Each structure stands twice: as C-alpha cells, then as structure tokens.
C-alpha cells in the first residue's frame, strides 16, 4: 500500500493547495475587474512584510503558544530603526539592531511563559499594553519624521519596475524556513512539542528549551518584518502598528497552522499571505472602507478555524491504514 505521490499532485490535494487554487482564481478575477496592475508594486511590497510576520507567528502558534504583541512590537522596533537610520548607521547594522530588539521582546514573553508557566496569551497581552504605554513616552511620541529619501529609496528598490527587492528577501526567508522546518532536528522538535508536549518529553526532547528558542526565532523574524515594513517609508508612526497582529494571525491560521499547535507548513504562509494582501487591495480597489477589510478577515479566520477543527472532507481525507481503528 505504499504510494509515492508526485509532489505536485500532493501539493494541490493538500489544504494549502486548495487554498492556492482559490487564491489564484481570486487573483485573476481581481486582475480583470479592477485596476490591480496599477497597484501591483504596492501589493507585492506589502506581501513581503506579511510573509515575514506570518512566519513569525507560525513559529509560536505551531508550539501551541501565541504572541499578541507581534503588532505593537513593530512600532517599537520602528522607532529604534528610524532613529538609528537617521543617525546614519548603515542599513545592515540597523537590521541587526531590529532583530535584537525583536528577540528581546520575544525572550521576555518566552521566559515568563516557560519559567512561571503563565500562558503566553496573557504575557504577550501585557507586552502589548507596555508597548502602547511606552509610545507616548518616547521623544515626539515615537514619531520619526524626515527620514532621508536616500534610505527609503533603498527600501523601495524594485526590479523590472514592479518587483520589490524586499519581497525577494521575504521569499528567501520563506525558502529558508521551508528547509529549516523539515530538514533540521530543531524544526522537527517544534512540531513535536506543539503536537504533544508529554510525548515530546518521553522522546527525550527538552520542551522548555525548544519553546524558548522558538520564541527567539519568532522575535528575530519580527525584527525583519519591522524593517520590511518601515524601510520604504519616510516616517515612522509607532501607534499605527496597534492591531497589526491581526494581519499576521489570520495568515498563520488560514495558512494551515493549527491554533492547538503541531501542524502547519511555511508554504501555507505564502499562500495565505497573498490572500490577505489581496483582500486588502481588493477592498481599496473596490472603494470599500477599512470596515470591509476587517469583515473579510473575520470571516476568513472563522472559516479557517472551522476547517481545522471539523472534518471537512475536502480538507481532511480520513482513511484508516493497517488494522482496526
């Protein structure tokens, strides 16, 4: 009964595959009914940070944890990077600083979660309030204006007139994580700890260590996300990031990461990221307000969660192999 599926058929019969087909259809419809081609560059540029942020949340959700502060931390990082960029520090060094700030934030959440057994939901919620409380205390309420256009031009660099360079970075990141989750022991351990903590311990895996390191990875990704978000802009407004975790969370959930932990693939993040970025664009192009963006997110998340928890045939072909069930 050993069947070796062709990888392409395997993909298009998986959950991510169905989603990809849906997204492709939506794309074609949008392309021909609206002026999507006109705002293609912005669409692709937004996709970059959505992929990075989606990956960051994927890591923690895969563990069965969550990081609600993944939105507001971008504001904090933005303040730091904006300030340092204005000081003339080279972009690679600023990227490193951004990664460090992101890791620090996640390290705090992970430490409290692991050490004191406080659910990460509560800890990261507290972090959100800390961030929001800190913004007004920063110089100029954290606003960094008049970032030289020589810098924002680097962020806005494009290939062939339409393809943003930062999206290239996001795709490299995505490919790295596809490899990382499948081909490293650490990647496998993340699935194990998220899937069944007790079994993981019995398999000799240090669950606390894995949790901590996964949060650090997620934090580093958020650092990159912040850079991708702010670098093309000439102005940093930290309070604008409030609620941005609600972009990343749907991407992870729609992308097939079970909120209970243990499942999900980075490729799903790509597909779901395109979906969310497209919905954003679609609502703007149809002249619909933000309220419709949120409505569509809400509905999509509900459908995705329902698909995960229920046995919808199309998503979950149930079959029994070898012996009684």
């Amino acid at each position: 009964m050993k069947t070796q599926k062709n990888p392409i058929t395997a993909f298009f019969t998986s959950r991510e595959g169905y989603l990809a087909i849906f997204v492709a259809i939506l794309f074609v419809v949008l392309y021909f009914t609206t002026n999507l081609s006109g705002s293609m560059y912005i669409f692709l540029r937004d996709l970059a940070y959505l992929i990075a942020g989606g990956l960051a949340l994927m890591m923690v959700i895969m563990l069965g944890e969550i990081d609600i502060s993944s939105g507001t931390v971008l504001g904090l990082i933005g303040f730091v990077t904006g300030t340092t960029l204005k000081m003339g520090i080279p972009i690679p060094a600023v990227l490193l600083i951004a990664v460090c700030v992101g890791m620090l934030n996640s390290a705090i959440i992970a430490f409290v979660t692991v050490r004191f057994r406080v659910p990460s939901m509560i800890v990261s919620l507290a972090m959100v309030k800390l961030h929001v409380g800190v913004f007004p205390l920063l110089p100029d309420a954290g606003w960094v204006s008049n970032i030289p256009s020589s810098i924002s031009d680097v962020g806005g660099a494009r290939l062939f007139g339409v393809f943003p360079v930062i999206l290239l970075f996001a795709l490299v990141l995505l490919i790295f994580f596809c490899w990382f989750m499948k081909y490293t022991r650490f990647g496998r351990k993340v699935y194990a700890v998220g899937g069944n903590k007790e079994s993981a311990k019995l398999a000799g895996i240090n669950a606390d260590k894995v949790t901590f390191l996964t949060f650090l990875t997620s934090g580093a990704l958020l650092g990159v996300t912040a850079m991708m978000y702010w670098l093309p802009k000439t102005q940093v407004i930290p309070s604008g990031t409030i609620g941005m975790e609600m972009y990343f969370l749907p991407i992870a959930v729609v992308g097939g990461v079970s909120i209970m932990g243990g499942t999900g693939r980075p490729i799903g993040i790509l597909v779901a990221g395109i979906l969310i970025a497209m919905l954003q664009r679609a609502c703007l192009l149809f002249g619909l307000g933000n309220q419709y963006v949120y409505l569509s997110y809400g509905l999509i998340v509900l459908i995705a969660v329902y698909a995960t928890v229920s046995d919808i045939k199309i998503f979950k072909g149930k079959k029994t192999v070898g012996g009684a069930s």
Partner: protein
Amino acid sequence: MDIILKLEDICKSFPGVKALDHMQIELARGEMHAVCGENGAGKSTLMKVITGVYKADSGNMYLNGEKVTIREPNDAYAKGIAIIFQETSLFKDLTVLENIFMGHEPVKKVFGVIPNIDYRAMKEKAQQIFEFLGIDKEISFDAKVDDLGVAAKQMVEIAKALTYDANILIFDEPTAALTSKDVRALFQTIARLKESGISMMYISHRMEEIFEIADRVTVIRDGSFVRTAAIGEVTEKELIAWMVGREMNEMYPKAEVEIGKPILEVKNLCKDGLLRNISFEVRQGEIFGVAGLAGAGRTEMAECLSGLMQRDSGDVEFYGSPLNVKAYREAVDAGFVYISEDRKKYGLSVPMTIKENLTMSILYKISKNGFIDFKEEENIVDDYMQKLRVKAPNREFVVENLSGGNQQKVLVAKALCAKPRLLILDEPTRGVDVGAKSEIHRIISNLAKEGLSIIMISSDMPELLGMSDRLMVIKAGTKVGELTREEFSQEKVLEMAL
C-alpha cells in the same frame, strides 16, 4: 543465567503513596519476562523508573553487570532500553517516518557545516526495520499517524523503539486495546524480536497471554517484589494467589441490612465497542459491586446508565418506570446519582469552597426568584458535613486544601444533597489513605442501612468483597458472571475478570 538488566531495592514515592517499595527484578538476555500484578500494584511505575521517565528515590540498576544511572528518557535510549507505551506516545499530526525518528533523526552535513536531516538514510533504516517487522507492505512511511488504526500505531511504536537500536524492549499492556486478530500479529512480531536476541519485559493482566509467550514471570504487589518464577513451574492459580495475597481486616464494617425488592432493572445494555448485553438488577438497600479490570467497561456502564453517554440499546427500569435520560440532569432529578472516579476532573471544583461545591447541583431547589436562600444553604451544608464527619475548619474552606479522604467525603455529601434513591460510586476510595478509607466504608454502609441502593465500582478487590452484597464481574464489555456474598473469594473474582 546471563543477566542483562538487574534492578535492586528500588523505592519510589509520590506524595502520600509509596509506589515502589524495595522492588527488584532481573532480566536475562534474550528472555521474555512478564510482569504482573493487580491494578495499581506499581508495574507501570517500575517501567517508568527503568526508562528514566521517573527517577527512583533509591536503589541500584545494573546493565550488563555494570552499575548505571538513568536520569532521563534519552539516557535509557542511549543504553538501548526502549518502551512501548500503553497509550501510544506518537505525534498524530506527523507522518510515520517523522514519528519513528523524532528527536534522533540521522543528520548529514551539507557543505560540511550545515546539519541537514537525511531523509534518505531515514527511509533506508525505516525500510529495514519495517521489513524485519513484516509491516513494510501495510504501513506507508508518509501516512499521517492520526489516520492509522490502533494496531498499526502500535507497530509504529515498536518500529520507533527499534530505531534506537534497542536491545531491551518493554511492553506496557500492549494488547489492552487490540482485537484478537491484532494480538496474534503482535505475538508473531514479538517472536521475531525474540529470535533476533532482544530481551523483553511484558506487562499484562491477561493470564493466557503470559502463559503463552513469557519465559519467566515476576509478581508485584503493593509496590513490593513477591517472587519470580519460570513459567513452566507455576500455575495460573498460584500466580493469582501471589497477586492478591492480602488478608481481610477491620477495614470493612458491613452493617446487616434488610434487602428489599428490586428497584433498578437493566436489560441488554449495549454501547458500540464498549458494552455488550449487560443485564442485572439492584435491590433496595443493597450494595451491588462491579468488578473488572481497568478498561473493562465499568465506568462506561455507569455513564450509559446516568445519561453521561448515550446507550445504543437496552432497557433500564427504575422504580417500575423506564429510565431513558438524555442528559445527566434528568438522571439526578430521577434520583439517580453518579460519583465519578476522577474526583478532581468530574467530581469537585477544587478551588471553590465546601459550601459552594455541596450545593452546586441543588441551587435551583434552595433559591427563590434566582436568589439563593443562604440560611437554608448553610443548614444543608452543616447537616451533611456533620453527618459525614468532614474534617474542615468551616464550611467556607477551599476544597483544594482538604486531604484526599475529606475531598471524597465532600463529593459523597454533594451527591447526597441531590437526595438520591440510587448512588453509583466509581472507585470511592481511590487516592485515599487507609484511615479515611475505613471511614468512607462506614458511610457507605450506613447509607445502605438507611435504604439507599448503591452500585459500587472498584478495582480494590478486598473493598469490593468486604462491602458488596452481590457482585457482578465485567470483562471486555461483557458480563462474565454474578456472585452472591457466600460465593465471594478474591481468587474467583480475579479468575473471572482476567
């Protein structure tokens, strides 16, 4: 004899319980060594000590004659000791291949530096193991474990153990969830493992299995070593006698009760895969014992009767009228109250006070227009606390801080508040110390004296024999037989249950 593994003087305590008391066991190279004992005798604890899941408080362990210490599961795996757990410990969302190598995947360096999981090496090794186990045609490496049946999952567990190159394998009740056909397949696999020189320990309740496949058997009772014998030199009767081996004492104050006419009649109770054609009756003032091994379907029977689980078929008559409850609430209203074996999960809300717990199920009776009548509530609570002698400073005491025995009393009191006509007690003295145990028995006895009928499910054999008027034995979801008090003996019950 060539001893590969030897344990001496192993002690292990959990808060309030001595799980292992100077336990010893030795495993010869290439032998199949059965470990048997009653429910809760400490078999699984012993295996967890061997595999590093628990750390022994004291005692020595020798592997190939050398003293070793095993601190965590990884140590055991590294030394070639692996266990196939009772409840499979697989990751259901991952594939078979990913599962069997979890945590110790073969790694190949790419460009000499980047460690990369070597899926090809994994497949090759898995292929060898699967061929050896004879399952390479049945189970696909890429199948998700969640989609496998119980028997296939177990084979994957065995394959997982072999990926560690284990030469000592421990089976913890492997046949508990298998059909007889799957058991045969498992035994063939075990025979193949034995041929290749792997030493095995095998925990099981099932006598016929032990006599079929084991070379030697060690009996454990109350966490202590009883004896080890070669399988050819011991009879089933002797084994059971060693497993039981206790004497009755003053633990069971049984009051003389006038037993009335039948109040509950159950006919052909069925639940798919769990219960088959169970029929019995319970009389007024009677204590009706239900014996059987863990997993035989005792709790499921109680749940089917009280509406916590829907039965597939069967008639239940209670006080002359049919009892067809869709929800537990209706059962309680009919005077049919069930006390769960899992006190903390299904019995009490432990962070709440004694008072709040006691009146939880009768709030509608003691409140007017949605407001609780505190005076009446306090009267009821004081009444039952006194009656059952709950030892607590006051009625506002948080249940969590009570001892196990007193928590159990609160649970019984809570059930009594609902004014039951029939009480189902599931493991009424689990996790309760000896003193409280006899007190709970006295309470049960007094309740019967007042005319309450009681169904008592218990794994504690002396308790069942000491307290019951009649006894029903369940094995694998079917009723094996019924014994009257005159016919009671531990050996008889165990023989029927095994």
